């Protein structure tokens, strides 16, 4: 097993201990034991229960694993489970939209044109400058609708 995976298990183990018995009890014993045994024994991070998890030095993969446990073992009702599923699905859609936006050849071309034309002071520049705020406004509106940070 590679070191990164072992470190993920170390972080997951620390978070489980932070969350406490009521969460650990709901995990299959074999799963919890696997995490405990496969973690990196010399890496035992301590987390601050006062600070949001995503603001502490936690790998994304760690938080993802905790999210997986939450969905499978810690939801108290179907309603809660469905809400979580919707959240992950929404985040997936935002993620895909960002990828499309980032790698859309049309956008790459637009950005390149804008950067070139900014350096020339002509009527064409004036037209591009007019477009730029409109462009940003549309993107901002999309981001506001989908609550993208």
């Amino acid at each position, binding site marked *: 097993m590679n070191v990164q995976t072992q470190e993920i298990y170390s972080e997951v183990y620390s978070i489980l201990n932070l969350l406490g018995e009521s969460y650990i009890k709901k995990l299959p014993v074999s799963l919890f034991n696997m995490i405990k045994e496969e973690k990196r024994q010399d890496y035992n991070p301590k987390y601050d229960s006062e*600070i949001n998890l995503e603001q502490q030095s936690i790998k994304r993969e760690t938080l993802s694993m905790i999210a997986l446990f939450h969905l499978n073992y810690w939801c108290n009702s179907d309603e809660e489970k469905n809400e979580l599923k919707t959240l992950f699905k929404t985040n997936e859609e935002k*993620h895909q939209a960002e990828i499309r936006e980032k790698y859309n050849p049309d956008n790459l071309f637009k950005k390149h044109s804008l950067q070139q034309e900014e350096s020339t002071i002509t009527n064409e520049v004036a037209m591009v400058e007019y477009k730029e705020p409109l462009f940003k406004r549309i993107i901002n509106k999309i981001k506001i609708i989908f609550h993208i940070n």
Partner: protein
Amino acid sequence: MEYNLSQKNDNQKKQYESIIEQNNKKYFKLAEEIKNIRAGKEGTAQDRQFAILELQIQQEEIERDTVTKEQAIADLYVREMEENLTQRRINKEISAQEFSNEIHNIREYRSMISINSNIEDYDIESTILQMKLRLEHMKKSMGKVPKEQADKNIAEMEQTLSDNEEYRQDEVNELAKQNFEYKRRNLYYQRNSGEISTDELKQKLEELEQTKGKIPTKKEFEEMLNDLSEKHLEQPQQSQEYEREVSNRDGINYSHYWEQNKNQDINEWHDNCVYHHIQDFDNKTFEYGLHAPSDTTAHYVEYVGERLGEEYARGAKGEKAELARQFAMLEVQGRMGDFLDLYNSEETSGYDNPKLLLQLEKVSGLNIEELEDTIGLDTSALHQDIYVATYEIEEWDETLQRNIMKPIKEYYTRNEDGFDIIGTGTEYETTFVIDGMSIDVDTEQVLQGDSLEKVTQREMGDRLIKNGIEDSLKSGKVTEVAQLTDMSFLKDFREQCGIPETWDLNGRTFIVSTMNEKGEEDFDIIIRNDGAGDTEYEHLMGINATDKSGREMYTTNGRRIPGGAEELDKTQTLKEFMTKSGHRYTITRNAEGKLGFNEIFRENENIIQGQHIDAYTYSTDDLVSAYENAGINQEDLNKAYEALNRTKAEREQTQNQTKTNNLEGR
């Protein structure tokens, strides 16, 4: 859990309980007096503060006496345990080895609770001394005592405080040492009696070494007591059959309405306050106000805002902490300061019609097309990080012909010196001051950039309550707190707990879950004490935990099934309680995972049935917000699932390889 005592010990216990009851009555009476002084206008603020301090000192003295009486009751039970154990040895019911271990346990437990009680006494004494110091300083400044005498008294008290600190530390060190020895001795006993193997002993001793220097937690003391009580005290026969009429209920789902209010759109007008009133805010700001400069409203508000900001920022770091501090300043300004009401252009005081701050958000700039299109206007001020404060204010609406809550927005930039306001807006129109010009735009034209960080009033109120509970109970981090809201129920509940009529439970009674540094979860029913100088929470008197938990029960959830019958949830009791009157209650988790409080009305060998009591849960920093903020998506979950499966496969392969190697005799 109640245990039987011999006649002699039981009589002694009743005497102590009677003294404690009288102490409680005196305490409540003093609390009423403090409340009246706070609400009154007689004398100067300093005179009122002086009078309050004197009464608070009396309260602490009463508290100190109550603690010694409680310790005396605990000692009676320990004495009973020792007597019962000795009798069992005389009757040859236990071996010499077991007797030796248990008598050590009882005596060491007695020693530890006695030391713990000393530590509590030092803490109360320090609190009293600090109050007396403040009083002495006030007497000196008010000329009530000659300066030389006051200085002498102050020096003496400060010396006593310093000495107490030293003695307290000695007691803490001794308690830690005894705690370690108690556990160590019991581990050896377990090995000697065959409960654990030598290897297990070695491992547990290594784990115990890690805890050296730590005093027992409240939970550990409870566990020691439960363990000893079960072995050495007689339990009263408790009937399994239990049937009671449920207490009164309002039948109003307050928590549902409060939750609905919270979800109203703060950017548009709405009927009810989104702002959730927290009594802790009033108590804290009143306390700060007593020390604030009173020359101008602005200075007063600034002082109170700064002090409140430190409270809001507790535990937060970086940007969040800065936002929390600024939130406090703006909130206090809106509730206690003077400002221009944008809807009627009148100067208003926050005391008359408060501007209630709901949210402070840091965004990556603003985009206002009209301003961007204005040739020659320098809009660079809008393209940096902007702090958006959203308020609500009660206004009369001519069209609707009633009062409604209308939104107000304020826009700030930040520099080394602090926050500068660059815009203010109503629901319809916003005015920006940029590039030296004041410009009005339609509010709907103002587009915000990405949200970078945010604090809400709910979050800050939640933080205030949790700080108060953690500071008071000292039993670990508060993971969840829910307020009991049903007023009719709380009246009955008060009687069941034997609390005097003058002590209204409404708005002050909560159920709480805490977690200590070991990750041990605990639950309690607590009350907020508004009579003390600082907001203080304590266990609700007149109701105690039983030793039962983890039992299956059915309870209502406030919803009805078609046909009108109440919907029932099947759940498990997290902790169970009994009032002085014998009424039984449980704390559970409801279907949404929130703490629930239930009254048992039927219990027999087949079923436990309860009726829930409406409770409003204050939000917690939970896992879901972490997933949201980090943008955890389906792909992340898939990768996590694959990682776990890979690890499982690797382990299986290793195990199979080991089996094969063993079979082949390698």
